[in-house]
């Protein structure tokens, strides 16, 4: 492949425009970086290139000729390979078996033995050092990634797309990866690197294209730009402080998080010793790209995940590693990140979901029985107080739109007057109206004496709502700043791990 271009690509999912009129190009021996926050549309664009999605309009040009790509096999045939952010590997199988699965030329008999030589040849070419007979679950993240790379290359990929490849790697592994990418570049491959990390883009890419909210907002040769200008392109605004919220004195401390270490599902440290406090009349925000430990932190605070070491205390009571219900009773409410997956029982009706976390409380149940009249009244109140649009409280919850479901969940959690409300990406995927409404509700909570922990990738939201902002990167806080601190103009750098305050 000598050159590839995506011309005027647009793609929408229902009412969300993921890609608007995107043009990118790359040529042989080049590494192109795709920079942007989560939700900017980078992965969608690459999935179109890889054949997993079909664009609504626009075309793909390979070597100057218009090409149609309708499935992953098409893209592979044209020499495109992709290494996804979440590996598509089978842990119990060996490296050879995993590669054999995706390789067009796998022999029918004894495939593991026969492609072993191929695998070793590729390994040597790029200095990989992979043992084809080892089971994948035994490999480190870096090694697994190399298996994915070999899987792509062995099918004859000229163009290699890597989606956030360094998110699971140690710094040494990252260095090794970049070395490999340089090797590939020298051998004539084309590489597209999706990342939100400025340092890495500047280090390894020749050119960079910046996306924001589905559009291209900037392009440059990496030699010509520096971190600050890239960061500004990525976030898309000069940080002008528009504080619509009234200034509030924060009052007494509500929750103390003391040096907590939390492990993720892969048994690695996702949160590496974070400490902070949150006070009443305050919204404390955690900004940062998803996947830097925010989810694990939220789960630990709400009782869904164990804390390895450190303490969490609310209103003086130690709640480290207590049960979910106990933590809830102590006054921590939670609006979850994936609202349909965790926040509601979709098939149950509205009034039943209105008390999902509260059904054990005396006001909704007496001993064994649920007090349905009170519950239904509560549900009606929720619907009207929080402007949930639904024909009645008797409909199945899954029939509601995302925005209304979120309003229901928020209302449910707020109505119990919790000491701390943890809201995780609360406006993700919502329309403008619902978003605005939810933000107003959070501000109202703050005014009424509650404390709010807001985790969000939406910087606009963070700046609009928060009194103090912490920037989270790879399990640590890069800094905790007051919302009027001028150093916040460098928040992009902090989010990308390049600056600590």
């Amino acid at each position, binding site marked *: 492949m000598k050159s590839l271009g995506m011309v005027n690509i647009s793609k929408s999912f229902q009412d969300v425009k993921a890609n608007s009129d995107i043009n990118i190009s790359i040529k042989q021996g080049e590494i192109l970086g795709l920079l942007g926050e989560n939700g900017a549309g980078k992965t969608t664009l690459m999935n179109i290139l890889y054949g997993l999605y079909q664009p609504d309009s626009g075309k793909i040009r390979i070597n100057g000729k218009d090409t149609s790509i309708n499935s992953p096999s098409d893209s592979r045939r044209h020499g495109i390979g992709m290494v996804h952010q979440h590996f598509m590997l089978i842990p119990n199988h060996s490296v050879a078996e995993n590669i054999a699965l995706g390789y067009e030329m796998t022999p029918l008999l004894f495939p593991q033995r026969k492609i072993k030589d191929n695998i070793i040849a590729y390994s040597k070419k790029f200095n990989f050092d992979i043992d084809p007979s080892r089971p994948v679950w035994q490999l480190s993240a870096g090694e697994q990634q190399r298996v994915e790379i070999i899987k792509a290359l062995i099918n004859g990929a000229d163009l290699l797309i890597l989606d956030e490849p360094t998110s699971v790697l140690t710094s040494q592994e990252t260095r090794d990866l970049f070395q490999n990418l340089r090797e590939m570049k020298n051998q004539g491959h084309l590489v597209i690197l999706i990342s939100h990390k400025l340092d890495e883009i500047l280090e390894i890419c020749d050119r960079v294209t910046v996306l924001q909210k589905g559009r291209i907002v900037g392009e440059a040769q990496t030699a010509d730009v520096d971190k600050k200008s890239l960061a500004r392109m990525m976030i898309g605004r000069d940080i002008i402080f528009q504080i619509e919220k009234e200034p509030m004195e924060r009052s007494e401390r509500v929750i103390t998080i003391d040096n907590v270490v939390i492990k993720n599902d892969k048994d690695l440290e996702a949160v590496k010793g974070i400490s902070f406090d949150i006070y009443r009349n305050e919204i404390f925000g955690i900004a940062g790209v998803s996947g830097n430990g925010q989810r694990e932190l939220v789960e630990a605070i709400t009782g869904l995940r164990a804390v390895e070491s450190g303490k969490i205390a609310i209103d003086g009571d130690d709640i480290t590693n207590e049960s979910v219900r106990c933590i809830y009773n102590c006054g921590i409410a939670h609006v979850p990140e994936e609202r349909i997956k965790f*926040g509601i029982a979709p098939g149950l009706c509205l009034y*039943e979901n209105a008390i999902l976390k509260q059904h054990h409380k005396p006001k909704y149940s007496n001993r064994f029985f649920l007090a349905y009249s009170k519950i239904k009244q509560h549900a009606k109140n929720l619907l009207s107080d929080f402007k949930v649009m639904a024909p009645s409280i008797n409909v199945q919850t899954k029939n509601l739109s995302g925005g209304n479901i979120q309003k229901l969940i928020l209302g449910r959690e707020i109505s119990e007057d919790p000491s701390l409300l943890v809201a995780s990406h609360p406006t993700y995927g919502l329309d403008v109206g619902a978003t605005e409404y939810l933000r107003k509700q959070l501000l109202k909570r703050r005014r009424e004496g509650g404390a709010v922990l807001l985790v969000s990738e939406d910087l606009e939201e963070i700046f609009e709502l928060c009194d103090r902002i912490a920037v989270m990167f790879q399990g640590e806080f890069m800094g905790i700043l007051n919302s009027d601190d001028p150093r916040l103009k460098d928040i992009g750098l902090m989010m990308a791990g390049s600056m600590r305050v």
Partner: protein
Amino acid sequence: MLKFKVTDRMNILPRHSLLSLVFSLGAGLLAISVIFLFSGVNPLYAIFKIFSGSFGSMYGLKETVTKAIPLILIGGGLAVAFRAKFWNIGAESQLLMGSIFGTWVGLNWGPHLPWPVIVPLMFFAGFVGGALWGLIPAILKIRFSINEVISTLMLNYICNEFMKLLIVGPWRGKTKHGFPYTDDLPLSATLSVLPGSRIHYATLIIAVVAVILLGIAIYKTRFGYEVRVIGENPDAAKYSGIDFFRTTLIIMVISGGMAGLAGVGEAAGIHHYLSYPESISSGYGYTAIIVAWLAKLNPVYVILSALFFAGILVGGDAIQISLGLPAATVQVFNGTLLVFLIMGDFFLKNRVALQWGLKRN
């Protein structure tokens, strides 16, 4: 190229459910007729005979109610378990355990106690027996993540052999001429029946009361709410603080216990002594699975569903005699209806649209 587009159906109204049910039963009967035709049986006559045999005469009705009793009990218990997506396939052996425990109490304490004392004791013992046996797969699942389908299935066979061991060995009756049966239960320990029938009404009353209580529990209590949330969305259940461990244990105590009660009913109400496991449990544990399914896991609807399937069982006996068809004919009904219920359920939950798509290359 013909393509089907399948999407979740958003608004499922009760009338959709009813329509789906009627469609499934109708299509099922049609399929059964085809099978009958293929086997050289007049389908209209056969189906007519089945339903007249079970619902068309007093005798038939009484037999139908008799056979419905264990189905109501077990079906109600399964409705609870299945709602939480705990696939209890072991009701057959939970019934047997109940009959074993109940018979032990009846044989050993029966001669010394009057029936107002011994009968409740037997029922209690049977409940305990079934519940204990039901707790085993619950614990295996919670503590050891062992799939409950397999564990309950294995326990069915283990219990089967255990019972055979008892009746040929230590429990072999002295009055049974060497046959592998236990002695008869003393009179005080047997259940009286409605005159002119085999309906052991005590068990029937317990069954109806129990499923009504379970119905109330499922829809009106905290426990029932938690069961429903677990079945709907286990992630949300975890998020909401529901205790999986405790709830699963209680579910299986209920499900196993109900089957155990049915076992006492069969032993003390119908047979009056224990014999081969298959004749005591008669496949009720498996039939009850369909009963619960047809009732859409609503314990109160189970009563109707149980009567329906009991009718098929009785009708199956009837055509065995009148048409000389094998006993397995009933299984044709059960199997075919279940298959069409599955299909009907699918169309209830999904909208299927035909897409006349252009051929892609």
